[in-house]
């Protein structure tokens, strides 16, 4: 399912990043960072909601907009009942749509927002997402103070909130097209190797996007997956070659690998993950580079493991999904 859009533009973005991300190579590109994982709140969940609330506030300030100018917000995160999205958006009285695609949430938001704007029913829509290392560890794994040892293939949930404002007002960058992902199951069961779970979903979506639009990978200056990490990235390149005979390695990178300095920040293991991981990279350095016209065509492919601890304990496979959005500098 691939759509093309005629009148959808990126008006602005905002990023609020946590302490580990601030120690990484993208620090100068973030709008705001915080040093304490609690973010001056009482719990991990509230800390996550606060980071998204700050990101929305920053977006409105940067765009010089009032909250009444926004038609709708589409937001999702990893927590049960998408808690941080609800508790942060509630402060602004926006009409609210909650979504879930695990770490593929940011592109799902952009696809929905773009389709709404393209249909001319709305003018300005915010797509938002957040995640928090500690709130995710608490919900999906062990208590945060436990520090259970993990294998090298494990990824590290990024902390922060990020938003993108899409609008029908012309700007330098447009949302050109998008592809909705399918749910993929290739028999993976290891929650500490999410790269292997998500790589086939990314491959499927990239392949369908390229086939639907009759394009080759070199059409894009950059193809970016969400959070496959070091090993998932290798798997995807190999998968694309073996299954589709397509070589993407020339202009391909992964946000999970870009968000941290993998040589210095050993605690992140195979790289970043979480819905905000890809959003923090795409809405900061990628957006800036596109604004400066250093890169003109980018394919964002956010990847999500639809991971349920309950189903894993019941010995079911982990499902995955990937959504793609193509961004282009308007010439």
């Amino acid at each position, binding site marked *: 399912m691939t759509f093309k859009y005629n009148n959808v533009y990126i008006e602005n973005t905002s990023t609020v990043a946590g302490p580990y991300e601030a120690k990484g190579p993208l620090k100068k590109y973030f709008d705001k960072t915080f040093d304490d994982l609690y973010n001056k709140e009482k719990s991990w969940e509230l800390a996550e909601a606060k980071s998204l609330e700050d990101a929305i506030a920053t977006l409105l300030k940067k765009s010089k907009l009032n909250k009444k100018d926004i038609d709708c917000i589409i937001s999702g995160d990893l927590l049960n009942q998408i808690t941080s999205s609800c508790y942060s958006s509630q402060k602004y009285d926006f009409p609210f749509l909650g979504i879930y695609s695990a770490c593929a949430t940011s592109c799902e938001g952009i696809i929905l927002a773009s389709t709404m704007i393209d249909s001319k029913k709305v003018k300005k829509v915010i797509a938002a997402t957040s995640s928090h290392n500690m709130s995710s560890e608490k919900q999906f794994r*062990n208590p*945060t*103070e436990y*520090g259970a040892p993990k294998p090298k293939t494990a990824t590290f949930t990024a902390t922060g909130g990020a938003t993108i404002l899409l609008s029908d007002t012309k700007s330098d960058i447009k949302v050109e097209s998008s592809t909705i992902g399918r749910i993929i199951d290739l*028999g993976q069961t290891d929650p500490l190797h999410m790269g292997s779970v998500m790589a*086939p979903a990314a491959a499927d979506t990239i392949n369908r996007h390229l086939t639907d639009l009759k394009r080759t990978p070199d059409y894009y200056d950059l193809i970016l997956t969400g959070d496959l990490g070091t*090993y998932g990235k290798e798997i995807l390149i190999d998968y694309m070659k073996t299954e589709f005979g397509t070589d993407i390695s020339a202009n391909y990178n992964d946000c999970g690998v870009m968000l941290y300095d993998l040589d210095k920040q050993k605690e992140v293991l195979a790289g970043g993950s979480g819905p905000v991981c890809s959003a923090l990279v795409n809405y900061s350095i990628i957006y800036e580079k596109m604004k400066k016209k250093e890169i003109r065509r980018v394919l964002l492919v956010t990847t999500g493991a639809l991971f349920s601890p309950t189903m894993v304990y019941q010995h079911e496979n982990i499902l995955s999904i990937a959504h793609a959005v193509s961004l282009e500098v308007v010439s």
Partner: protein
Amino acid sequence: MIMEKKQYKKIVDKHKPTETRAQNAFIAFVTGGIVGVIGQLMTEFYASFFEISTKDASTFMLVTLIFIASLLTALGFFDKWVTFCKCGLIIPITGFAHSMTSAGIEYKKEGPIYGLGSNIFKLAGSVILYGVVSAWFFGLLRLIIMGG
């Protein structure tokens, strides 16, 4: 247009990093051994200082190790030690204490009943249940074979 699961498994295995198992086992062996030595020294100390039996002294030692592990967890750096030492700190009684304290800290915000009370045994619960069941089972075997 989706690859066979078997074929995909081959690709995944090809890109799997090798874990440093020997190094991990060595670190766990040394650090676990150090915990054991500390425990033994503590037992000897209690037995001679308080003039009590070795059995009583080892109970004192266990309580002390549990206290130290819980305190270090609460102070916030025991998790980093566990990540480094791995089973060297998880298998001894320090790991048991740490699993309860870390769960206790994590769920304190949800209140004393629904938070702390229901979740403190989140990790340790299985150890207690199967510990009690196997103790009963081996006690029965001992009774049958050795007569008590």
